């Protein structure tokens, strides 16, 4: 049973990607497929970041170790969807015009913010294999705390591109606030219990 969990998580995490491929093949992304593809892959990046960030609280609340066993894979899926998002933006929205890509990265704050989040995910992905964890020692944990920053930047990126309807940004922002707030409260609680504050 436990053996089946990993491949199942893998398949489920790939499902949105396969659905997108199917929609591309069926020409089912609407009249402006470049835009649709960018929106979809961007949202899945943010969703996987939030799912990854939900794993530690879930383990702590339920006492089930299973939740953190696949945390790394889920984080890598955030990187995967982020890469597809970045590539489809470069290819389908900007048509690989290099000057335009560079100009956009530097001059549009929401793109700079999104790109920074992507660079963080790349750094975390590269340092995620076990040998790297050992090699980096204490610094690994410090480095990987940047995932919180990546998620915050991701929500800002989304909020910034929306034209008037901020429903989705509010939704993702609230979930992120909950996940980060939980950590903060738990930190304070343990400090309090240890008699350091209070």
């Amino acid at each position, binding site marked *: 049973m436990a053996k089946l969990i990993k491949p199942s998580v893998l398949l489920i995490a790939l499902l949105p990607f396969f659905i997108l491929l199917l929609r591309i093949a069926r020409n089912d992304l609407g009249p*402006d497929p470049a*835009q649709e593809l960018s929106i979809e892959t961007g949202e899945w990046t943010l969703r996987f970041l939030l799912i990854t960030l939900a794993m530690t609280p879930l383990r702590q609340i339920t006492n089930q170790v299973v939740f953190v066993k696949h945390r790394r894979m889920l984080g890598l899926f955030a990187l995967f969807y982020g890469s597809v998002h970045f590539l489809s933006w470069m290819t389908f929205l*900007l*048509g690989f015009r290099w000057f335009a890509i560079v100009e956009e990265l530097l001059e549009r704050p929401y793109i700079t913010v999104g790109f920074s989040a992507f660079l963080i995910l790349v750094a975390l992905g590269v340092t995620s294999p076990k040998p790297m964890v050992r090699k980096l020692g204490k610094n690994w944990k410090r480095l990987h705390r940047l995932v919180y920053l990546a998620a915050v930047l991701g929500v800002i990126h989304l909020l910034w591109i929306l034209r*008037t*309807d*901020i*429903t989705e940004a509010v939704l993702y922002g609230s979930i992120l606030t909950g996940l980060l707030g939980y950590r903060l409260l738990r930190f304070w609680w343990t400090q309090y219990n240890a008699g350091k504050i209070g």
Partner: protein
Amino acid sequence: MLIKKPSDIKTSEITPENVYKSRREFMLDGSKLMLGTMAGASLPATVLAQNGGALKARAPASMQRAAPAPWWAEKFSSIKPAPNSEPFFTGETLTPYRDVTHYNNFYEYGMDKGDPSANSNPSQPDPWSVAITGEVARPGTYNLEDILKPVDLEERIYRMRCVEAWSMVIPWIGFPLADLIKQFEPTSNARFIEFETLVDPDTMPGVTSRFAMVNWPYREGLRMDEAMNPLAFMAVGLYGNYLPSQNGAPMRLIVPWKYGFKGIKSIVRINFRETQPNTTWNDLQANEYGFYANVNPAVHHPRWRQDMERRLPQTLFSRQHIETQLFNGYGEQVAHLYNGMDLARNF
């Protein structure tokens, strides 16, 4: 022994250079002509099949809408077809009827592009009245039927460039805005014209959304000389058929040299005034959306580029990224309106 072989071709048979060159040009022109004819043939078959093919474009038979009232049918029975030349016509490939009617920004019906077609009433509202107010000799509330009585409907094929960097080519049915304005005899104080969209919480789910930061009703405006320009158009139909609600039924504005959001839909009020009116997008984000909103590839939206556009519909692997033109290609008709103005500041 050397036998001198005469040339196979007599000099009299050799075609002089100027003749064969002109012959080649003739053939090239001929093939261009053929291509042109084929482009014409690629218009929907229904265009030619119905009503003697008078109009250049018609909605597919299966998607044609019923007349909202008999007077509409009568009005639509005589429509002057689009000419064959710019600016009231473009030979660019038309955006299919289905995309024009199912990919819309009309936030009163919802924020997604598919919301307006999904949420709006499929039958067009009738009767409809429009309040004419402000600096006019003949203010009042008029029935749309009466407003349309003196005007002649015509077909125009315009490019439409959305501020979101996509564009369409749409065959509208309507009449020059100037013909509407003249009916109400604006006074000399009327320097601007202001339009307002219907707000109806019962039929427009978007106007009750808490997260849409729009201060309804949607408002747009033009300077009087812009409004009197022959390109400014009031549309009451598209593809030879009645205007669907999602496209702004029963009457909406078309200003093809400006970004699409200037083309206010489902108009219920037209106000003539001395001062520049507030407009919805300008109120929301003044640094992103100006009052003029002229299509300009050199002035980028703060959050995205405007030098290229995605002509819809697209597929991912046969993309049409085309260069955006100043005034959406209508500069010859409208550039003079902005003489001496800094278009980067008055965007």
